């Protein structure tokens, strides 16, 4: 067992926890997106740590990191697109105000 791996994984776990907290507690769409970014950051650090300390010769690990980065970027991009559309129609991206569709 290596201290580095554990520490890195704990960092990932902490980022994940913070991200989850953010995603659940924020009222603003953009802030929720930040929470998601943090969750994905946790995933990134996990992946890199696993690659480095367990499977350094597997390039797929790095590849996965790239994919996760892509996911982060694309979600941001489309997220902002949706935010703009929402802003145009409603003037706000507050989630609490988005409760027209319900039972």
């Amino acid at each position: 067992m290596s201290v580095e791996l554990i520490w890195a994984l704990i960092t990932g776990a902490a980022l994940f926890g913070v991200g989850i907290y953010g995603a659940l507690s924020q009222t603003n769409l953009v802030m929720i997106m930040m929470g998601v970014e943090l969750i994905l950051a946790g995933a990134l650090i996990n992946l890199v740590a696993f690659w480095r300390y367990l499977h350094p010769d597997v390039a797929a690990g790095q590849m996965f990191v790239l994919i996760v980065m892509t996911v982060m970027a694309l979600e941001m991009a489309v997220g902002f697109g949706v935010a703009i559309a929402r802003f145009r129609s409603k003037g706000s991206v507050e989630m609490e105000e988005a409760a027209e569709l319900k039972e």
Partner: protein
Amino acid sequence: MANDLALMLPEIIVLLTAIAALVAEMLRQPRVAFFVSITGLAVATMLTLPLLGEQATAFSDTFRIDTLSIWAKLILLPATILSLLLVRAELGGSAREGTAYVLIIMITLASLIMAGAGDTMLLVLGILLAGLGSFALVAYPRTDAATEAAMKYFVFASVTAGVMIFGLTYWFGGTGSTLLSELVILEKSPALAAIGFIAVVIGLGYKAALVPFHFWAPDAYEGAPVSIAAYLSVIPKVGAIFALAQVVRDLPVESAWQWIIAAVAVLSMTYGYLAALGQQNVVRLLAYSSVAQAGYFLLGVIAVGSSPLAFESLIVFSAAYAAMNLGAFAIVMQVGRTLEAFKNTGRQFPMIGVAMVVFLISLAGIPPLAGFVGKFLLFGAAMEAGFTWLVVIAIINSVLSLAVYLRIVVPMYQPSENEVITTDTVTIPLVRQVWFAGLLLTVLIGLAAQFLLGSIS
């Protein structure tokens, strides 16, 4: 490599179709985009046929050309064509209608990729791609409802995708590979396998609208145009379910993955129908029904590896589901979104009445229609896998489902107080073609299920 490309030809054609449609849209030729899309998808379907019976992988095992993925193409591509007809009927003439076609084809591509995914990265990308297109489609009308639906959809999607990716990293840590086929290694650490699998269930469960990841679905379907809702309730869902089947194929049993699937199945079936029971809005009702139907799909997933019926049942039921659900939505498009609108339609328009009744009782699983054959196979598969109790719950839910679907049937044949003929219910040719095709398929799949079964095995 060339062989890989040949194996993936249908997907490539789909991609090219999307690009061609995009070009046509950019040239402000939505009609052309539409016809290009239809033609391209039809060609892709044709090109899938020679692959039947193939058992191979492409691109170093990252993509599987097997029964599931081939049949995903054969089911989802025609279903997409039908959806496109519906979309054309509803959104035709609006600005940037071609974008909708492009996005739809892209989502279909994503669903196909998911259904054949052999690599966790492809799974992630498939979910992402399907999601990205869906938000835009749901937000298409730009009304308050549509943007709200898109926003909720987006939040749900991004959070669940994040959790899923985070969980999947552990699989990489455990196996040292992103390939699904390497999951067998996890036999020694089932806890790790289980944790990763829950993450996958979260991601795919959201896509397939399984309880408890379904919350976006009713809102999104209600906010979106009906045709888009019809599309979203079928194609990405089937893709996600197939992806789940691909995942569990290599998952060691010790990870208790069957338990998770069973739990989610029970929740989905029961909650879906319970929630549908009180709906006044037919689209919402069908949304919840699609949640429940996703639960039924899991009966096939649970049997993967322990019953030869598993794949057959999944395929037959998804074909049936596609036919009847698209048909039902098509009729909703024609009649209206509320139960009020359905009053007396059965008497005024006998054909629409008959068609809707057929779709609904097929959804409820009454023979000899497609839904019955599908569910029957699913039940058989689950029983063979030793999940008789699950089948019992499914059967009890079938009774519940009947009550749900009768909620639509009953007003259709109830004489309304004022026998005014609602003139706004005009037959839209494209929609009529769709529900007619759905009707035909629903009946045919029920009667000639062997055609499917024979080709599957």
